[in-house]
């Protein structure tokens, strides 16, 4: 049992090297994309917003999944509890990385333009909500809530590792209940502020739910990939069994279906109503070159992962599952591209080199921070009240060979 309480750094020495390499890659990417900032500020900000929302989605999705697991329990969560915590602890960095959006908001959001608002009755009506100071105050509140949740959950979890105090589990549960409520509300309004208001006339009440679903899916895909990687190294190679992947695969399947369900519901309702202010959002996406992106989403954000994840074999085969997970992360980026980019290029599809470089850059930086956070703590929460019932039998017996079905 002693080796289970070693920190990740001691168990997997190569983590430090990966962190360094990722940081260098992130630095190079940042230098290259800064060049883009000089050519086209607007394009830079637009691509940055997309890359940022993906990384934020993984971070917050992990935070939310962690809180869900505190409340629901289940063996699926025990083995990914530590990656979840590490991802949530990237939040302070994500807070800093929001600054370019805050500084660039005048170029991103049309409603910041006083001339435009002066000639638009609808925007004048919305000015009470869509104005620069209130936007910044709201953003500050969101980050305060998210950082607060992440801070306390992680601090208590660290204390649990040290003291094995059973009351901490109850305290974490209690915070998670209110925390999920706070997450749901903040992310809804954050998605209205940061994404929906890119087209300030358009509105959709399901938008927040759609973003929540997307964040959950991003986080699950990331965690699946992380678990596959960790399961090949000590100490998780003795712990993780195909059933863990099966559970994660099922959860990904559920979220793929949820995403499709939310997206289709929004489309069907707006398509049927066909009201000018609502349908315009789809018109410049579906009657221009952007249509190709829409079709890509139907095929690769829904059909392909859905069909693959239906198969029991695929969910229990880590080599295959990791490919699905990485594919899902890529289509998550394409989905954000679909939400953001057409607002800036209404006449037809346009892909900038920054749309590729910035996600890679932010992704590398994020991953480096994640690894840094992962290294400091053990990879398993041995004092979690559920640890024994979830993994006790596997540890006693020694995990069966992973190829077994």
């Amino acid at each position, binding site marked *: 049992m002693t080796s289970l309480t070693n920190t990740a750094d001691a168990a997997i020495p190569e983590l430090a090297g990966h962190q360094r390499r990722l940081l260098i890659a992130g630095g190079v990417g940042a230098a290259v994309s800064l060049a883009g900032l000089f050519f086209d500020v607007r394009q830079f900000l637009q691509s940055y917003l997309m890359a940022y929302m993906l990384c934020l989605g993984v971070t917050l999705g992990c935070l939310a999944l962690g809180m869900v697991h505190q409340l629901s329990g289940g063996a699926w969560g025990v083995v990914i509890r530590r990656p979840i915590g590490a991802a949530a602890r990237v939040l302070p960095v994500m807070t800093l990385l929001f600054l370019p959006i805050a500084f660039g908001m005048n170029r991103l959001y049309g409603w910041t333009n006083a001339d435009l608002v002066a000639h638009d009755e609808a925007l004048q009506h919305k000015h009470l909500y869509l104005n620069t100071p209130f936007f910044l105050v709201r953003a500050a509140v969101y980050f305060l809530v998210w950082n607060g949740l992440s801070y306390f959950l992680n601090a208590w979890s660290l204390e649990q590792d040290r003291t094995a105090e059973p009351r901490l589990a109850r305290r974490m549960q209690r915070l998670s209940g209110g925390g999920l409520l706070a997450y749901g509300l903040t992310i809804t309004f954050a998605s209205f502020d940061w994404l929906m208001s890119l087209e300030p006339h358009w509105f959709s009440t399901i938008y927040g739910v759609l973003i929540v679903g997307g964040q959950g899916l991003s986080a699950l895909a990331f965690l699946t990939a992380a678990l596959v990687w960790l399961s090949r190294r000590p100490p998780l190679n003795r712990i993780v069994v195909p059933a863990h992947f099966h559970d994660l695969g099922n959860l990904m399947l559920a979220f793929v279906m949820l995403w499709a369900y939310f997206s*289709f519901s929004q*489309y*069907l309702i707006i*398509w*049927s109503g*066909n009201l000018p202010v609502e349908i315009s959002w789809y018109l410049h996406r579906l009657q221009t070159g952007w249509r190709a992106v829409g079709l890509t989403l139907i095929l690769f954000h829904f059909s392909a992962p859905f069909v693959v994840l239906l198969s029991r074999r695929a969910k229990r085969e880590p080599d295959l599952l990791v490919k699905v997970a990485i594919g899902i992360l890529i289509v998550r980026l394409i989905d954000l591209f679909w939400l953001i980019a057409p607002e800036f290029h209404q006449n037809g599809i346009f892909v900038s080199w920054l749309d590729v470089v910035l996600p890679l850059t932010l992704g590398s930086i994020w991953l480096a921070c994640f690894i840094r956070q992962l290294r400091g703590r053990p990879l398993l929460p041995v004092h979690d009240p559920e640890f024994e019932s979830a993994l006790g039998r596997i540890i006693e017996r020694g995990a069966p060979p992973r190829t077994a079905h």
Partner: protein
Amino acid sequence: MKGPSPLYGLMAEFDDVSSLVLAAERAYGEGYRCLDAYSPFPIEQLHEALGSHHTRLPLIVLIGGLCGCLGGYALQYWSSALAYPLNIGGKPLHSWPAFIPVTFECTILAAALSAVLGMLALNGLPMPYHPVFNVPRFALASRNRFFLCIEAIDPKFDVEATRRFLETLNPREVNTVAD
């Protein structure tokens, strides 16, 4: 005019789950292949112990679901776009978004029907008569007793030898099952 009734097999009765699973494993290991175990609730290991393989049911359900999916869509396309074209709200005759809900429902309906009918068919149910019911104590198979039956058609079956073998498994009792 009661002659000796033909034999269906020999049935051993057990008190608990573990004995039945062990007995099934032993009987299979002994080389018996025509055998079945009866229990008042599903036991995952039992099925493996009897050496049977995966069921074809998921495939049947998949095919059923696909038929429902295509059938549901075709029904709507045919009636809305071909047989009875009507201009509704200026929407195109072939309006795929509006066809999704019914297509989905048809998929689920056909798949669910295939699951239930497929399960019953593969299990050979309904079956009003089966020899195992001739053993009076078998009524407890739906309460709290566990039974292992080695059938007479098994090539290795021999009334005396098989009974002796079953007696070694610590059963509560061994009964002959009339056909």
